[in-house]
């Protein structure tokens, strides 16, 4: 990602490569690699399909930088029975749609499927995910990620990893 400046165009190809890299990092639970992908902003899993005012609604997750760090520490610290070991996951990210573009910034919507395995049983989640990405001198960074789970306002199961 050398030669990137804050107003470099982020191509669809570059954005997709970034999202696939993030997906791979999350399947490996490599939070030390995931946290630096961020540049401020919130990691949000809202409840309901139409919510946009996340701060004034109850979310499944609404993490600023400090909460992301605390969550990563919890999931990797070995003191959380649900994450020691966590469910194993395999995910695919696809059906990319650019919804906003500006110099040095792109908003991209994608489809996410995650299959988890624990205790010999498998569960599946599907979500529409929106990433707001910016160009920095260190490469592409995330300024907001919204994971809209199907059935977010219905019955879920406990989740010991990140989407």
């Amino acid at each position: 990602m050398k030669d990137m400046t804050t107003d470099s165009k982020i191509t669809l190809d570059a954005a997709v490569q970034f999202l696939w890299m993030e997906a791979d990092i999350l399947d490996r639970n490599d939070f030390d690699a995931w946290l630096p992908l961020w540049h401020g902003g919130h990691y949000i899993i809202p409840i309901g399909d139409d919510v946009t005012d996340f701060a004034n609604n109850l979310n499944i997750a609404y993490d600023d930088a400090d909460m992301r760090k605390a969550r990563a520490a919890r999931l990797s610290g070995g003191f959380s029975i649900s994450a020691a070991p966590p469910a194993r996951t395999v995910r695919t990210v696809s059906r990319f749609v650019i919804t906003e573009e500006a110099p040095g910034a792109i908003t991209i919507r994608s489809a996410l499927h995650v299959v988890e395995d624990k205790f010999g049983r498998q569960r599946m989640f599907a979500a529409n995910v929106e990433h707001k990405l910016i160009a920095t001198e260190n490469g592409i960074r995330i300024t907001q990620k919204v994971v809209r789970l199907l059935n977010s306002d219905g019955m879920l199961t406990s989740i010991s990893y990140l989407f």
Partner: protein
Amino acid sequence: MTLDHFPQGPQDASYAPLVKGDRVATPMYEDPAIFDVEMEKIFGKTWVWVGHESEVPDKGNFKLSVVGTQPVIISRDRKGALHVLVNRCRHRAATVCEIKKGKTSSFQCPYHGWGYALDGSLRGVPYTEGYNTDFDKKDYGLKKLKVETYQGMIFASFNMDVEPLEDFLGNAKLWIDLFMKQGGGFPVKTLGEHQFKVPMNWKIQLENTTDAYHFPVVHKSFMQSLDGEATQQFSFLEDDDGWVEDLGNGHSVMVMMPELNDLDDNLDAPIPERFEALAETLRADYDEAQVRRIVRAVGGCGFNLNLFPNAACSLSFFRILRPVSVQETEIRHIALGMDGGPEAANQMRMRLHEHFQGPMGFGSPDDAEVWERVQRGSAGAGDLDVMVNRGVGLEDTSPNGLPKGDISAETGMRAAYRKWQEMMA
């Protein structure tokens, strides 16, 4: 074999002996026949928590809920009266509503178009000429449950002869009154909910609400995510001022932080550092007395009130369980806030709720994990009992004259199981 001699099944059996005071028999987590009888003799007979009035605030509001395994609709009719109706058309049984929450003037069955008013009465039947003259719509309203409320909480019962709700709640009322003080001078209102399903028997969740013993073990990673001041607050197992009290009728209270029992007390105490920024924001709009009251309310209460069989007022939220099958239970963690209260205060309430609760909270997934482990372990050595004997022989009498154990005693579980035993006899 004539129908007169048809086997009556397990309904004839008494399951009371499965509760043995300080222990319970493993089939209580495992046997589908027991589950069926529980749905009939407990969830079909007593008061069951179905919702909060703020979920159906206006005329025409409705919300779907369940009583045991039976789908119901909570509705508020055009005169403002609450109804709890079985969500089943009286014609051929289709559900008449599948929208989780909303506003309507009627419920219409999608199959043949039968239309029902908000109070459940049958209003419209297409092509009525196909029925004989003795067909009377009055005979075909949606099945209604008995409904009563206490402090905004809506309870329903299939048993029309059930005792008055206030008698059923009994000694728990005092604690409900205290719990509702976290409106901070505003009415308490639901702010949304987390919902997750766990492969476990419903009684494993019922036990957990009154289990302080697990907290430092299961919630170690939550504790590690707190600042020093809050860590102190959650170290109740090391303090010696908490207790568990058997309130009768299966209800119990587990007092973790007695200094937070009555939120109107000690309002002059220094504002904890983690609430200082909120207090400063509130000072723009409220006088100092109100600021202190609101800030104190934001932090929530210091106790878990367990209401048999399916509800809890837990620190700062409602914890509701729904039995699905003998090995499957749905949990709802309903966030609460101040109706008409300051936005900053409600935001902080929601952030605190998100921190611990729900499918991805820092606490609930670890609870779900150990509950599932209880169910998985119960498959082994079914001849062994599940022990709830912690604190037996060490209990004394509370100032209210009720049995009381120390904070980690299993007094509340024994209280719930005694009620279970009485109802399952």
